C-alpha cells in the first residue's frame, strides 16, 4: 500500500427536510469526488489511506489478521469509480414501475479514522421508486438502515425526503411485498 493514487469516484446522498416538503425535486446528478492517498483493492472495495505509518507496506489481509487500524482514509466500492458508473446498465431496474414501493440493498462509502475497518457498509433502503436515471436512481420518502457493520442503525437518523443512489452501488432492488 505504497503507491500514490489520484482517484475519482461518486457517492450516494440524501436530500433532507431543509429542501422543503412541497418543492418539486430539481434535476438530480451524481457529484464528482476526488481523493489522493495510498490505495489498495481489497475484494470489491478500494481502500484509500490518507495517513499511514511510514514503514507500513503490509497488505490489507495482513492488517486484518493483526487487527491493525486504518489511521485515516476512506473505503469505496470498486464500482464507484467514475468510469464504471455507466457500465452498470443492468436490467434489474427495467421491470420496476416508477411510483412503486421498493427495497434496495446497496454498498456505501465509509470514512475511517483509527478503526480496524477495510470494507464498505451495507445499506437497506425502503422507499418509492421516484426516478430512474442513466447512472442513478432516486427514492422518495426513504428509510435507510445500515445493516453492516453492526450495530444496525438508521442512516440518517431522521428520514430524508429523497435518497440518490448510484446504480453501480446497488446489489439488488425488488418490489415491497405487501
Amino acid at each position, binding site marked *: 500500500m505504497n503507491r*500514490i493514487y489520484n482517484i475519482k469516484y461518486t457517492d450516494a446522498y440524501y436530500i433532507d427536510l431543509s429542501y422543503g416538503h412541497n418543492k418539486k425535486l430539481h434535476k438530480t446528478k451524481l*457529484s464528482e*469526488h*476526488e481523493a489522493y492517498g*495510498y490505495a489498495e483493492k481489497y475484494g470489491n472495495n*478500494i481502500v484509500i489511506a490518507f*495517513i499511514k505509518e*511510514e514503514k507500513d507496506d503490509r497488505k490489507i489481509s495482513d492488517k486484518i489478521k493483526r487487527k491493525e487500524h486504518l*489511521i*485515516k482514509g476512506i473505503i469505496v466500492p470498486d464500482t464507484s469509480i467514475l468510469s464504471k458508473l455507466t457500465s452498470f446498465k443492468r436490467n434489474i431496474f427495467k421491470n420496476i414501475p416508477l411510483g412503486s414501493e421498493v427495497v434496495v440493498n446497496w454498498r456505501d462509502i465509509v470514512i475511517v479514522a483509527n478503526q480496524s475497518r477495510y470494507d464498505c457498509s451495507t445499506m437497506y433502503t425502503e422507499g418509492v421508486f421516484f426516478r430512474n436515471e442513466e447512472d442513478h436512481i432516486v427514492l422518495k420518502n426513504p428509510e435507510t438502515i445500515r445493516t453492516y457493520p453492526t450495530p444496525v442503525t438508521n442512516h440518517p437518523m431522521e428520514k430524508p425526503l429523497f435518497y440518490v443512489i448510484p446504480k453501480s452501488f446497488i446489489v439488488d432492488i425488488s418490489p415491497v411485498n405487501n
Partner: protein
Amino acid sequence: MEKNNLKKEREENQIVEIILHDDSNTIKKYKCVGVLMKENEKTLRIGFNAVENVVKDYLDIKKKNIVDIKTINPKEISSLF
C-alpha cells in the same frame, strides 16, 4: 491563499508527501499525501479529498512535527478514474 481544489492538472497545486510524527510520540512516524492547501508560520494544511473541487477532509500539521516533505511529480501518481 487557500486552495480548495485537488486538480493535479493545475499548475499551482502541489501534491506533497509528508513524513511526520505526532505530538505524543517522536519515535513512530507517519506519512500522508495530498494537496498543499495553505501554509503559515507554524502550520501547513494538506487536503485529502474533495467533492466538486471543494476539500472535505484535511489535516493541519505543525511544522515542528514534520520530518520530511517532498513534492510529488504528477507522473508518480497513478490514476483510478
